[in-house]
């Protein structure tokens, strides 16, 4: 079972890799919309990547209003 810290780090690594942001430049408290500059369609891409990576389903309404990596990781953690 992953810890929340591990899940958060995996979310950061995945976002960094997919959106081609230098590893280590993202922090748990960062606003990922601002930091990654993603639009609504890219948000869906990220959701799919997270679901595929963690092998979970994460309904859109659970991440609606979430903008920082730490909270996003906590939503994922509750479904692992």
């Amino acid at each position, binding site marked *: 079972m992953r810890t929340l810290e591990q899940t958060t780090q995996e979310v950061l690594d995945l976002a960094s890799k997919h959106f081609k942001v230098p590893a280590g430049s993202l922090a748990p408290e960062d606003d990922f919309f601002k930091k990654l500059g993603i639009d609504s369609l890219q*948000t869906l891409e990220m959701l799919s990547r997270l679901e595929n990576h963690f092998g979970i389903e994460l309904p859109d309404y659970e991440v609606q209003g979430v903008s920082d990596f730490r909270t996003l990781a906590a939503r994922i953690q509750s479904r692992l």
Partner: protein
Amino acid sequence: MKSFTGKALRWEWRDGVIELTLDREPANEIGLAMLGELEQFVAAIGALVPETSACIIYSERRHGFSAGADLRELYQTAAQLTEKERLSGVRAFLGRIHAVFNAIDAAPFTTIAAVHGVCFGGGFELALTCDIVVADKMARFAFPELRLGLIPGFGGIPRLKRDLGNAFIRDLLLTGRSVNATRAHAAGLVAQIAAEGEVLRIARATTAQIVKFDAVTSAAAKKFIKPIPHEELCREIDLFCELFARPTVMAALKKFVESTDAMPYLP
């Protein structure tokens, strides 16, 4: 006509297979331009039937198969009309959409939707007219219409009910959430999952198998197993128009059109 290039789509016939490529910026929204060219496609099918075994519907747009109905066009058109004109206009539009979708649904050859990225609302409903759905593992499916105070109007509910039954529809419809290709595959909606960027190749490999069969037998098998739910489709149009008449719908459309939210398809 064995090939066509329009403003919203193009098609090409080759060796018994038609490839219909949706290609309208930004994400293949289905409005009057797309509908007009889909009507041309359906009109051209008749002449191609004797030498066609399969058809692939695919999107050239990076973000996906189709984001659904062109809500900006719908709102901007509707906003200029009286309530009575608005209702008759939307009913006429739905009548044309249903005629096209029913023709694709009943086409006497095997149809494959090769889906990647977003496959939402009307785009999802277009995919549901096909016999087989092949999906990129990053594809997402949703019926977000309830956020506008509407139901899907392009035949989605009756077709998904025909293909899968009621429970999966209720989950999608009543929550508005999107589901990924893995979930859609588990539910039976998606026949095959492709690796990222491989969906067209997988669809082509499938048609290469399909064309080996006698086309008359395949068409007879399809007609036997895939009835068009005409009665429910007509009721869907009535219900859609009934809901569309409410002022809340125009307010919701306005909110969507002006939205900059990350998930504008949710309320």
